[in-house]
Every structure is written in C-alpha cells, then in structure tokens.
C-alpha cells in the first residue's frame, strides 16, 4: 500500500511539473535567456536565445510527462541534444571548462524553481516539496545530458585536431624543380604513414617530381612495420614515375635494421638530406660544386 501511495505521489508530482513547464514555458524561457549559458552563446539575437530555451523547456516537459525523470536517454531529449551540444561546444571554444559548463547548466535551476514555488499557495506544503524535488531531479538529468553531449563534442574536437596534426606534421617540400622532400618526424604509425604516402604521391603528381626524398632523421624507431611502410611508399612513388631516396638513417638505426633482417637493398639511401639532394641533382645533371664526398660536414 505504502509503496503504491509513494508511486502515486511521484506520478502526481511529475504530472504537476509537466503542466507547470507547459503553462509557464514563455516565462521560463525569458528567464533562462539571460542566464550565462544562453546569453553568451546567442549574442546576436535575444529572440534566438528565447527560442532555444523554449525548446529545452518543451524537451523537459516531454521527459517529465513520460515519467523518465532520471533517464538521460529519454526520447524527449533527442530534439535538444544537438542544440545543447552546440551550445556547450561553443562555451568550450571560448575557454569554459566542462566543470564551468556544468555549473552554468546547474544555474538554470534556481530561476525555474522560483517560478514553480510561486505556483503554490503554501510553498511549504508536501505537494510543493515533492514538485520542487521532481524538478531538481529533472534539472540534474538535463545537466548530465549537456555534459554527455559536451564530452562527445570534445572527443570530436580532439579527433579533428589529431587529423590536422597528422597533416601538418607531414609537409611535402619542393627542394628543386622536380625534387620534393618529406621530413618525417615522430612515430610512423599506420595512420600517419598513410597520410605521408598520400601527400607525397599528390606532390609528385602536382609538381611533376622525378625525385622524392623521405628524410627519417626525426623518426625515433624503425621497426619492421615502419620499414614496411617506407618500402610501400617507395614502391608507390616508383609507380608514379619518381625515384625515392631515404635519408637520415642514423648509424644506430642502420645497424638495428640489418639485425632485424630488413632488406633495404632496393632502396636508395643517403646519410643526410643534403646528400640525398646532391644525389638527386647529380642525376639531373646538375653538379653541386664544393661538396666533398660522403660523410663530410654540412657547408
């Protein structure tokens, strides 16, 4: 008996909050539009902020009507998930931390709670308490929904930055007419070596390069996978009509490669980038004067 009485009270409170949200939609939205979360995002037009707030109120009303007060995956949130995600992302872009954004969402509770209390002749009546509590739960759930979308947006941002970093980390440089070079820096995992290969092949076509230099001075470890990536890149460049030169193989790495059993015999290698360039120029019939043979220091 008691349990169902309890449930009944819950249901009544949810119903009351639903009605309240629908009835006071306009006032709630007006108040929220001035809260930092919305005011700072919709800077151009306050009307837009009000519209966005109304959508959030509608969503909350639907979630409450469904009785899914604590369910962050309640269908009612679907309509505003996108909008909340963009709002949170825009706050994050201007430097707000996730904790600050969470605080701002929490800050929406006070104005709407005040309105709700005003609905009751006796704000200390049990029904009033129950309703305020229900609204608090609902607002807590909204906060979680915003945090979740904010985290998703953050992950997307990181993934995008990672991709961008991969691109900038592999610039293809034209050293001379028909000679391009890629200074490789850092770990050559599969994803990066794919980017390297693509940008190199593109540059070979764009610049009609006959020689492509892969400089691995900045690659800390050359294991069998890295070697395989290098050889694939060399082979692909060859198919495009360019000869590849791998430069920057340090002595310790050279010894390691040999012990590992990797055969770079079919690949032209040079100690440094300058040696590789001299080689490529020489093959084009351009003699580089004043450059003593292998092993000499840079002039």
């Amino acid at each position: 008996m008691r349990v169902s009485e309890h449930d009944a009270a819950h249901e009544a409170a949810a119903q009351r909050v639903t009605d309240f949200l629908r009835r006071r939609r306009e006032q709630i939205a007006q108040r929220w539009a001035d809260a930092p979360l919305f005011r700072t995002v919709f800077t151009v037009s306050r009307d837009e902020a009000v519209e966005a707030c109304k959508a959030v109120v509608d969503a909350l009303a639907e979630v409450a009507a469904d009785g899914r007060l604590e369910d962050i995956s309640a269908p009612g949130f679907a309509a505003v998930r996108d909008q909340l995600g963009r709002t949170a992302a825009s706050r994050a872009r201007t430097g707000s931390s996730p904790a600050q954004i969470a605080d701002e969402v929490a800050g929406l509770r006070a104005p709407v709670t005040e309105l709700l209390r005003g609905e009751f002749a006796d704000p200390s009546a049990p029904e009033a308490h129950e309703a305020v509590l229900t609204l608090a739960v609902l607002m807590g759930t909204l906060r979680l929904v915003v945090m979740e979308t904010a985290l998703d947006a953050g992950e997307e941002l990181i993934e995008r930055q990672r991709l961008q970093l991969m691109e900038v980390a592999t610039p293809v440089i034209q050293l001379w007419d028909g000679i391009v070079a890629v200074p490789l820096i850092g770990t050559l995992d599969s994803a990066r070596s794919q980017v390297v290969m693509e940008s190199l092949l593109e540059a070979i076509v764009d610049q009609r390069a006959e020689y492509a230099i892969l400089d691995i001075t900045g690659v800390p470890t050359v294991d069998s996978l890295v070697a395989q990536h290098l050889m694939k890149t060399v082979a692909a460049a060859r198919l495009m009509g360019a000869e590849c030169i791998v430069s920057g193989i340090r002595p310790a790495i050279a010894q390691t490669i040999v012990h590992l059993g990797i055969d770079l015999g079919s690949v032209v290698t040079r100690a440094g980038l300058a040696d590789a360039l001299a080689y490529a120029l020489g093959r084009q019939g351009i003699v580089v004067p004043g450059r003593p043979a292998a092993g000499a220091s840079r002039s």
Partner: protein
Amino acid sequence: MMEVLPRRPAPIALPIGSDADLARVRQHVRLVATELGFGLVQQTKLVTAASELARNTLVHGGGGQAEITPLEEGHRTGLRLSFVDQGPGIRDVALAMTDGYSTGGGLGLGLSGAERLVHEFAIETGPGRGTTVTAVAWVTGVPAPRSGAGPRRPGAR
C-alpha cells in the same frame, strides 16, 4: 629509511592495449636502458625489439602487458623485457620464428628479428595458453656516459 642501495630503475609493468601504449613502452624502455648505461646502438636495438614484441602482443595476442625489469648479476647489468598476453598462443613456434613468416601480412621479421637484437630470448606459448616472450640484453663494452655531455668530438673547439 636509509636507502644505501645504488639507485636503479624499479621493475614496472605497462599495459599494451593501443598504439599509444606501444609508444609509451618504447619510451620507457629507452629511458631505462639509458639509465642502466646501455650505449646508443644497444638502446636502439632494445627499443626496436620492444616495439616488435609489444606490437605482436597487441596485434596477435589481443593486448596484454610489458614487464620491464632491470637486472644485476655480479658485475653485469642488464634489462629483461617480457611481453605477456592471454591470446590464442602460437601453435608452431619454429614456424613463427622463421624470417618472413607472417599470418597477418607483415614482413614476418618481428619475432626472428627481435631475437637477433638481444642476447637471450625465450617464448612460452601454446594453443589457448597465451604467449609470453622474454628478451634479455646485457650492457656490453665500454659503458656509455650516463648523461649530460654529448658525444665527444675530437678536434672540436
């Protein structure tokens, strides 16, 4: 309270579950090898062997962990690297150790190559028993300068 033992890096276990973990294992092996006094060539060999074996743990073993243990035996100093997984195991170890043998489109030089890069090498495995590959290298020759001064260049000002 009063530690009078020579400072040497403590044994450590690192997880292997992603490409980023592989990078961490390599970095840690390089750090410890440097601290133990391995020269540049030996460091490079150890890091490369670790890279091969850790990647096998990840790719073929479905993930696991790397155990990096400094060794001291009488007057010699060494480093033991163990790579442990609970994956499918290796049915035919001799075949897996053959240069060029790969079940995954690799060069097939990881296991056999790693063995050539270290002094001691052991594989414990069996179908359904997971795989543990252990590699040991000892500091050889003239100990490298521990830190600070770069390579000395005769005739440099």
